[in-house]
Every structure is written in C-alpha cells, then in structure tokens.
C-alpha cells in the first residue's frame, strides 16, 4: 500500500486520532513540577486556536512560518496549525547563531516567526534587515518581553484571548483552507545543515512524511501505547518524523522535558518505550555512567565489572534469541537483578522496547554495551531528503558495523564509484529555490544520490557505510583514503571527542585530535594531573601518550583490511581548542566541516607533513555571547 492510496495529510491524521483516541494523552510537558497533559482532543483545539490566530495575522496559503525554540507542545502545534491553513512550517535550530537564522529566514521569506522565548525573539529581531518579508513574531514565554514594542509581537496568550473573536471572523476561512489541503501539498521545509556552503531547504510533502512514518511504524509495529521523549532539535528531520509523523500516524504520546538541564531526569521519569538518540548521546550517557561507577566501593565495582563482562559474553546472543548454556543464562539473570536492571533504571531506559541510533557510526563497544544490558538498540541509515528512512535493522539482525536492510518501500542501488542511491515514497520534492542542486542530487527517475560511499554485505544483504563519497579519496600511492572511517574508529575511544584525518593525495595520513574534556579530565583527576585549562590538558605529555596508544590500536585494525591499509595514521597532534559550531567548524548536528577545518588550520596541516616537531599557531574563537577573541599555542606533533 503506497501513500497515494493513503491520501492523508497531517491534519487529517489529527482528526482521525481525535476520533480514535480522543481522550488518550497526545502530549505531555514537564512544567511547574508536574507533567501537564493534553489529550488528542485538546491538541486539536490548541491547533485550531493557533491556526485562527495565524489567519487573524493575515497568513496566506504557501506562506512560510519559521519556528524556533526548545521542544514544547505548543511549538509542535504551531507547525501543524501552519499546515492546517496551507502555510509551510520551517523549524529552525534553536541554538543557531544570528546570521544562520537570518539566512534561513531570508531564504524562505518567512512572513511569521514563532519563537519560544525572549532569547529567540532577540535573535530574530537582530536579523530583521536580512529578512524583509518577516512581518510578525509570536512568542510563547512572555518572561522579559513585557517592555518590548508589541506592534509586531504577539503572545500565545493574546491569541488564546482572541479565540472567540477569531472564530467568528475567520471560522469559514479556516474550513476553506482545510478543504484546500491535499497530500501532495508541502508538509514541512527542513534546512539541512549541509557540511559545506549554506543550508539547503528540503521540501517534503504530506505524502512523503506519512508514507515514511507508516512504513517505519509498521516495521517496528509502533502502537498508540508507545511513549517518546522529544528532546532533539525540532529543526532536525528525525524529530519531525518521530514527534509528528509517527506520533500522528500511530497516535502515541510525545513528552517534552522541562528544560535541557533536566533532560536526563525527565527521561527517567517518563521512561520512553521508543527512543532515538544520536551516537554522541549514548556515548556521553555511557561515559558519565562509567565515571560514576568509578567512585563506587571496590566490592561493588568488581561485582559490576564481573557482570558486565558476562553481559559482553552472552548479553547480545541472549538479546538476539540465540541459545546459551544454562549456567550462563542463570548468571545473566542474576546480573539482570543486580546490575543490568538497576542500570537500565538509573539510565532511564528500562522501558525502551525499540531504540535507534543514526546520523553517524556508533562505537561497537558502546552499541554492544547497551544491547548487552538488554536495551534493544538498533541502527538506521537515513537523511532529510528521504524523510529519514533508507535502511533499517530488523530485530534479531543487528550488528554494530552495518546499517541494516532497505526500509519497506525503499529501493537501493550502488554505483561503480561505490556511492549509494535510493528511491522511495519518502523522497523529497525539491530543494527550495535551488533547482540546480535539486537536479544534481535527484534524477528524473527519482533516484537520489546520498553522497555516501558504501557496499552491501552479500552474506546478509545489510548495507555497510564507508564514508562520504566525496571524502573517499586516493592516496599518493593510489590506495583508498577513507578519512571518516578512520575518524570513527578513533572516536570510539571515549577520550577522543573529535578528530580530522588528512591524507588525500598524500604519502601518508595524519590526524588532528580533540580530546574529551569530561573523560580525560576525569582521568586527570584520578591520576592527580593538575591542569588549568582545556588547552593545558590537551598539551599534557601523558595525554599525548594515551592518544598515541589509541592510534596504534586503530592502525593495527586498518592493517588487517587490504584496501584500507593506506589510511594508517603516521603523525598526529592534539588541538588546543574544542572544535565548535559557533566557529563554523562543526555543523549544528556536530558533524565536522572538513573543508573549513582544513583551511582554518592549514598551518597545522602543513606542519603535520613537513616533519617539524612542533608548531606555533593562533586561532580565532567565538564565545557564547558572540564576542570574538584569539588564542595562541605551540602544539607538539607526535610520530606514531
């Protein structure tokens, strides 16, 4: 069954859910100390209220409405409300800096911006000259906005107050707009934080979203009973699919945390049954866990170690339903009581029935750690252009280094250069106001280039990703150069936060390393190594030794694989500052902007290849408040 036959829009699904689950809870938000709840009925009323508000502000069909803020029910509603009246919601990363927001607002010519709080409102107001089209701003949290000029500012409260009036003034209009709505109309526009150049606005239709949501929901048989925690940026396609697409398709409840600080605590309270997180979240979760275990008493620690070892041995097999010896099973059950269960409990993952990770490769031991303690964690491979889903791992066929089989309804092919192509009902319509890149990525038959290189494992038909296609280069000696592949292997060590590997067209590979302040800092504490700053810790000789060790391990791995053996790292240095999205070195999803780094630190790169023992450098940095400053340092270069 394909989406055309479904022939539904998000608002249609909302109506359907009100029919099916009227009094069931659709949204929860931790506010004022308790979980405020809204039934599907409430949601519909909320959405209509906002939609009427939009109409009263003169929003036309096809207008773009930008949405900035942390995950909050009303902001989700404001997106659905936009669809309701034929406008296009454009969620924007809340932590984006001024000019990024300015660019997006300008590019999509948003006429209205919905802002979460004062901070977001300020950012928008700063960018006014970049987005002439913007006429109105609606804000949610009035704190601190009292004294602002309200000629163009409106609070959700005021919209609520005018509900009655708006109803009789725009009631018919609302219905007309709703009628005019159709599945091929635009559902949402999401800006991909492209690893290079300006973000591109990916236009997705209701068909795309709903087809993708249906397929994936069926795949894991998601039901109305699921609970999810919406904590990932609303501007990210994943969140849109989980918190709107699948939530509206399956009718399950979406919960919003109280604030970013309380996220982990709220996760524990809610206990999601369906959980998505990028690898870095699972990573930091594991790191903090291990650190906390470190300060436990010896007996407890050794018990923990013992059971975790056992889990590593039999945990995954048990999870995938393989037969294990009775003794092992008994010990595992004991572990379940003493360690795994309580651990899932403190991590807040006790109830996770289906868990996914995606976006980048996850460290095998991290991945296996969660599976071995009984969390059904799986991988999927996707991108905005596909409304997320390209490949996905079925229960019982889960491996750390593959990304699973093609999602229902998705076709995959791999060209001679190893680049992956796909075609699916979820495939996007176009890049907004950017035909040439639309054509360059999507051909007339609807095949889309992922820009990733990979191959299909004949043994089980699972897709394996090597790297970004364009980043897969050749070494001077003609051997294959897959930096991302190496970087991931390195990043699997908790002490390494980020790393960039160079070597395209060169004789050998070199690496720039970013240490993880939490993990390494903790090491420093336990070995009472004193340091005053990130820079000082990064420069510490013992730290160098540790990293040196990791790189050797990775090199050994690489040596095993014939066509990747060229990628072994010969020289490296530890960077004196953390790569930072505010300096444009990372994308908002914390992917490295390879080119930017290469240009910005070319002095280091040359030094890495001219054989010098150390190099002096100064770098510009941007602080939270947007001020700029310079830090300079002399970095040691280490041979492997």
């Amino acid at each position, binding site marked *: 069954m394909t989406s055309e036959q479904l022939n539904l829009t998000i608002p249609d699904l909302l109506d359907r859910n009100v029919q099916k689950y009227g009094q069931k809870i659709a949204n929860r938000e931790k506010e004022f100390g308790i979980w405020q709840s809204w039934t599907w009925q409430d949601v519909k009323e909320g959405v209509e209220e906002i939609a009427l508000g939009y109409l009263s502000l003169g929003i036309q069909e096809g207008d773009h409405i930008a949405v900035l803020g942390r995950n909050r029910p009303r902001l989700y509603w404001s997106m659905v409300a936009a669809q309701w009246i034929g406008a296009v919601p454009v969620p924007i990363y809340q932590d984006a800096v001024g000019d990024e927001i300015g660019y997006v607002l300008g590019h999509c010519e948003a006429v209205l911006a919905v802002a979460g709080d004062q901070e977001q409102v300020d950012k928008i107001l700063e960018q006014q000259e970049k987005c002439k089209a913007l006429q109105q701003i609606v804000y949610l949290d009035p*704190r601190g906005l009292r004294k602002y000029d309200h000629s163009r500012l409106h609070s959700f409260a005021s919209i609520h107050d005018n509900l009655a009036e708006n109803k009789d003034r725009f009631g018919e209009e609302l219905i007309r707009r709703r009628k005019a709505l159709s599945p091929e109309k635009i559902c949402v526009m999401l800006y991909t934080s492209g690893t290079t150049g300006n973000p591109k606005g990916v236009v997705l239709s209701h068909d795309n979203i709903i087809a993708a949501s249906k397929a994936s929901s069926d795949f894991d048989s998601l039901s109305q009973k699921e609970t999810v925690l919406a904590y990932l940026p609303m501007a990210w396609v994943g969140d849109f699919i989980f918190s709107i697409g699948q939530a509206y398709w399956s009718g399950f409840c979406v919960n919003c945390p109280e604030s970013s*600080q309380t996220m982990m*605590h709220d996760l524990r309270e809610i206990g999601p049954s369906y959980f998505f997180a990028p690898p870095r979240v699972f990573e930091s979760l594991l790191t903090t866990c291990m650190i906390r275990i470190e300060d436990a008493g010896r007996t407890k620690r050794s018990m923990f170690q013992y059971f975790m070892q056992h889990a590593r041995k039999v945990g995954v097999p048990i999870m995938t339903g393989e037969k294990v010896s009775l003794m092992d099973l008994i010990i595992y059950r004991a572990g379940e009581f003493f360690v795994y269960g309580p651990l899932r409990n403190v991590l807040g993952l006790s109830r996770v029935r289906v868990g996914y990770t995606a976006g980048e490769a996850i460290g095998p031991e991290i991945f296996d750690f969660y599976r071995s303690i009984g969390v059904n964690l799986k991988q999927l491979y996707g991108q905005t252009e596909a409304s997320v889903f390209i490949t996905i791992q079925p229960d019982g066929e889960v491996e750390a280094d593959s990304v699973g089989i093609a999602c229902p309804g998705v076709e995959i092919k791999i060209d001679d250069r190893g680049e992956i192509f796909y075609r699916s009902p979820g495939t996007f319509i176009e890049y907004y106001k950017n035909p040439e890149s639309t054509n360059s990525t999507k051909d007339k038959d609807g095949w889309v280039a992922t820009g990733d290189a990979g191959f299909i494992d004949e043994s089980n038909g699972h897709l394996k990703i090597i790297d970004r296609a364009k980043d897969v280069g050749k070494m001077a000696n003609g051997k294959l150069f897959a930096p991302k592949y190496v970087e991931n292997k390195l990043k699997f060590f908790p002490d390494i936060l980020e790393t960039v590997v160079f070597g395209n067209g060169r004789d050998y590979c070199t690496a720039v390393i970013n240490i993880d302040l939490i993990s390494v800092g903790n090491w420093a504490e336990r070995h009472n190594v004193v340091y005053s700053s990130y820079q000082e810790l990064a420069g510490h000789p013992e730290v160098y030794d540790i990293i040196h060790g990791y790189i050797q391990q990775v090199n050994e791995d690489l040596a095993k694989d014939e066509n990747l053996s060229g990628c072994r790292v010969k020289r490296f240095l530890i960077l004196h500052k953390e790569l930072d999205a505010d300096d444009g070195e990372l994308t908002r999803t914390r992917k490295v902007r390879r080119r930017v780094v290469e240009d910005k630190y070319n002095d280091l790169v040359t030094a890495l290849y001219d054989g010098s023992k150390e190099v002096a450098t100064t770098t510009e940095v941007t602080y939270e408040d947007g001020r700029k400053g310079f830090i300079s340092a002399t970095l040691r270069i280490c041979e492997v």
Partner: protein
Amino acid sequence: MNETEVTDKVDTLMDIKKVTLRFGGVKALSDVSFNIKESEIRAIIGPNGAGKSSMLNVINGFYTPQEGEIWFQGKRRPKLKPHQIAYQRIARTFQNIALFEGMTVLDNMMTGRMIYMKSGLLPQLLWWGKAEREETENRMIVERIIDFLEIQHIRKTPVGMLPYGLQKRVELGRALAAEPKLLLLDEPMAGMNNEEKEDMCRFILDVNEELGTSIALIEHDMGVVMDLADRVVVIDHGEKIADGLPDQVRNDQNVIDAYLGVAH
C-alpha cells in the same frame, strides 16, 4: 485599624514619620522619616551599624519604635505583631539567611504562603476537602515562582544542603511566595560572586517590573544600588542624612563624609 485618616500622597505605599527606636539607653534610630512609593525600588544605605536593619525591623514590626508613626497604604498602622503585619503583605529576606534548614525548598516556599492558608484542623487531619484543594492551589503559585527564579532542579532538596547563593535565591522565593505589596531585602547580594549578583539583580528588577512590587533594600555594593534603586535614603548613626535620586545622594557632601568617617 482604629484610624482611617488618608495621607496626602496617593501613590505613597508606606510613609515613615519621625520614627525613633531605643534599646534601653541606646538610640538605634532617631526621628527618621521617609516614604516608599508604589512599585519603586527604594535603597536604604549607610555605614555598618547605622541602623539600616533596625529600620527594616521597625517596618515589619519586629521592633516597635518608641516614637513616630508608620503609615501603610494611606492608613496609620497601629502596634501589630510581626505575623499580623505579614498579613498586610509585607515580606522580607534576612541579612544572614533565615531559611528553615530542616525543610525542602518547596516546603520553605509553601510556608511563605502561610498567610493564605485557611483550612481548619479537621480537614487537615483527614487531608480532605479544603485542605487538599488549598494545598494544590498554593502549590501552583509557588511553582510559578520556582519557575521564575529558575530553581526547578532543587525543588525537593533540603535547603541545608544548598550552596549559599542558591539559599539566598530560595529566601527571595519564600518572600515572593507571599505575593507581597512591599518587599524588604536586607543585603540580598551580601557575599555573592559577580555572576550570582547579576542574577539576583535581574530577579529583583523582574519582580519589580513584572509584578509591580515595591521594594526596599539595604545594600552595600554602591554599584548595585545605583543600578537598581529609583530613590536612595542614607542613614548614619540612626539619623537620616540624605534622601533622593541615586546621583544626588552620591554627590551629597554629608554622605561622602559619613562614608569617609568624618567626625560629626
């Protein structure tokens, strides 16, 4: 209220007239007069031991002056017990924190709602009807203040375990819980680092703006006073030596002398 005569100034919230306070022989305050207007921030400054705290103690009835009158909301205030004055919605914080150590942040702030709690013994004993309703209603208000002061994460922590800066914030919260008309702050920023001070300033200003609460505060940090206060009164050796806008006061000769400790 035995007297109901109305003062001339309408927008005056509190009028302190010729107040004199003695401890035995010692004069802590000698006929000090000044007023506090509706929704203004009024700073009371002066060298240590000048009688600033005594002034606050007089205002919220902890000390009763031997002479002088206090007019509140246009009415002359008879001699009242501190807890009766609390019912007139005058709340305060203390120079050295006076929180209820044994209770959680939430309970401390709920105690701040004491004057709104009216349910009788029996309902409370059975936790039924009015008692439970009242509890929930007041909890809602307190939660909004918790949200306002950004202390959600410590809601259920016993205050004894909190760092100094947070305790100060909680104490402010407890005072706010009473939804005061007049808020007295006794050195709200004493012993805070700059970041904490900035936060506290922001909160004080927000309270004054968002809720229109009148605030009388004692503070040593001149910078803070100049930023916050609408008007400043200076007390030295229990006498008022200056009263006016921050800039006037700063350049007032008496004040300068007082701070430099020139003999009178």
